[in-house]
């Protein structure tokens, strides 16, 4: 339980809840190029990147510079790659399913935030 709370990804739904409120509060939804939209993307990317660094360290996985860069600029492709490389096929598949759940949970939190607004 304590370990779960050390995982930065737990902050993803929280951030989404906040940004859902912010974006559907003053305005009627997200706007292209708006500060909340960009900030939310930045926060999400940062959390995922920090999680990746911590996870790689815990597993003793030596991530190349290219992979680190890819985790920032093309996360959607790099993340599944990392999951399979660091955990093998079965472990990677499980982790991928889990990450989809995390993503869905994050977006549900965003919806909840929009409803609270």
């Amino acid at each position, binding site marked *: 339980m304590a370990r779960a709370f050390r995982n930065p990804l737990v902050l993803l739904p929280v951030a989404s809840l906040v940004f859902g409120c912010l*974006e559907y509060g003053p305005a009627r939804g997200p706007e292209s190029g708006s500060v909340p939209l960009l900030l939310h993307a930045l926060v999400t990317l940062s959390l995922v990147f920090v999680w990746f660094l911590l996870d790689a360290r815990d597993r003793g996985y030596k991530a190349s510079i290219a992979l680190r860069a890819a985790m920032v600029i093309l996360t959607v492709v790099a993340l599944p790659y990392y999951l399979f490389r660091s955990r093998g096929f079965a472990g990677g598949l499980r982790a991928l399913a889990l990450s989809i759940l995390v993503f*869905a949970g994050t977006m549900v939190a965003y*919806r909840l935030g929009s409803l609270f607004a």
Partner: protein
Amino acid sequence: MRKTRLVCLLATGALAWPGLARASAVVNDVTRINPIVVDRVLVPTTIDAIVEAVRSHPGPVSIGGGRFSQGGQTATEGALQIDMRRLDGVVAFSKERKEITVQAGITWRKIQNTIDPHDLSVQIMQSYANFTAGGSLSVNVHGRYIGQGPLVQSVRSIRIVLADGRLVTASPAENPEIFYGAIGGYGALGVIVEATLGLADNVRVERTSEVMPLSAYRDYFDTRIRGHRDVIFHNADIYPGAYDTVRATSFVRTDKPVTIESRLMPEDKSYWGDRLGMRMVSDWPGGKALRRYVLDPILFRGERVEWRNYEASYDVKELEPVSRRTSTYVLQEYFVPVDRLEEFVRAMADILNRHHVNTLNVSIRHATQDPGTLLAWARTEVFAFVHYYKQGTSDADRREVGVWTRELIDAATALGGAYYLPYQIHATERQFRAAYPRADAFFALKRKLDPTNKFRNKLWDAYDKSGSGPSPARPRAPASNRSAPVNAPPDPAVRRQIAAFLQGVPGYKRDEAQTYLTLPEWLLVYYPGEYARFLKDRPASDFPYFASIGQFWSYYRDVYRLTRGRYPVNWGYHVMVLVIGSSYTAENGIKGSYERTIGRLVERLSGPAPTQEDVLAADVAQDYVDFIRAEPWYEFSFLRSLKQLWAETDLFGPHLLRKWERKLALSAEYLVKAEYATLIKVASKAAYGNEVTEVLALVDEAPAAALEGEAGVEVRRRFEDGSALLSLPRYDEFRDTVLRLVTRGIRFREIAGNGEILVTAVVPAEWSYDLPSGSVVIEKPMLADRRLKRIAVRAPVASLHGILLELADRKLEIEHVYDY
């Protein structure tokens, strides 16, 4: 079975059997673009047969030789065509007098075979030996010989069958008016059946070759070539593009031993290497540079000593393309007095470059003055410019060739020169008269010798007004005055002033190739549009993802072919198209694979009713299309779409499986696109900087009333002839603005310094393009609605208004006008 077929062929006259008259045949020339249905083809083997045919045939008579003329000079509709190729004997030969008498259907190669063992050579002939002697006499050929001129200079006498069936001998001393009329007379006065020709010694010649600036060539010619009796052959090839550099090649008499043993070019020689070289030069990106810097240095390296007859016995097979179905190699030729060489080359370069002619070579030859033929092309000592180029075979391509050919003819005649008549008949009657000022005397002689106008062909049908043949051909008048190029400024001096001014306007000239190359880029706007429309009433899994990938690349192939050879290769743009095409391929490949499997399965399990997510996906697709019509695609916020997907659709509801499948599938799509768009945005800014947002156009007139309310249009300058330089917005706004302006009577003269522009329209699948100007260069079905098709029209800018107004009148959708 084989016997039966042979009998049938003979019965229908489809075989060229000596003496047989073949009924209702189609004759053509080497270019394969001039098919003519004649009444009959007679293949005589005796002069008597010709006399009898001419005397007894009541209708028109045409004369054909090797079929190397390129504009129907050997036939006319409904004529009796006399195919001379079987009247090909040697009548007399004297080694001492260096003289040979031959029947007119003999090929030069056959003459060479006869005289070569006696160490003799033809005195004057063209570069290729496949032609018949009679054909060469009729067009009064020339070659690459120094100190010589037209073929007539080597002709001692001819025998000719006149319209009344008389067989007459003509020479400079006997019947000189017939001699000087029939040689170079293109079969108008009678059938030349025999000729006595002068011969020369077959000597060994050594090749020399030098590359030099065009500006140095005349000096070089005067000091090193002209008057040097040892120089047998000489020509200089001008490299296309800049047209400022020549490779001067001479064959000089020598006593050195030959390096090529054959005395004549082997008749079974393979020409695949030559054809490949031609293909590379004409079609490959950078082909012209490849020739100049790689192929020619290889071809001209080392010592080459050969016999004169070897150099004079080339086979036209070396020029033959693999196919002439969609394009063909064509020749034309212009003559100017020797002191006007540079002036003509400058004008020629301007015309050829302006019209993006795919020139393979321009060969400069020299000819001394003609001794007096009525249709002399060398009225003084001249340089000849043999222009070899590639053109399409469609009607539109031929019309286009006509436009710049007439400009070249004007350029030559303005300098006191002429153009050559054996090629495509594009010249107006005025141009013909300017180039051949003794045409009246020639036609008067024809009236005298052939009062019923028996001897006809396409050339004389075009220019012999006093004959009884059909009206002369002339450049087609536009069927609608909307397409008339009324916007050419009348005063060349003003035109030059305007051109000089425009050259100095920053950003005025844009690469014309881009009007074509931007089409694939725009497809990435059209396809999402089709996708958005498709999603409104049909499931995503039915969209033709894979067909659209194939069609994208097929469009790219087409525009590549349209620009290849006509324009310098725009590597940056090709790379860009390859990148976006690959992205599109990957995206649609993945999407198509997913939608056709998992997507379709979930669709079937959930029933036909669309979920909220399906509706939102259709809306996002439409938003995306609307957005990218004005902005670069990578500026579109897929993150916003992702958030809307989750915040503005319910988490639970009908068709739950489909609902969540769509949420996850669309999320993946929007996430990938959001990140990819960011990447491309950064890369684009770094590679291209900020985009140019205006395009400049020269219009005939720009009255204030026509520009009223046009906020995006700015008059940058007005010129003294009433024309004006306008600044117009780009992209979709460009199309809308141009449409409004042409409706108000604005006529474009140039857009971004260019004379042609691409227009696409969406039209019913069964519709055929029948507008008087412009030509369809690409035509493909609309994938999501097969009742429609997209046509890409190559439009002359001068006729753009006519094309747009006509399409609009017919309620056809003008999709885009491609602003380079």
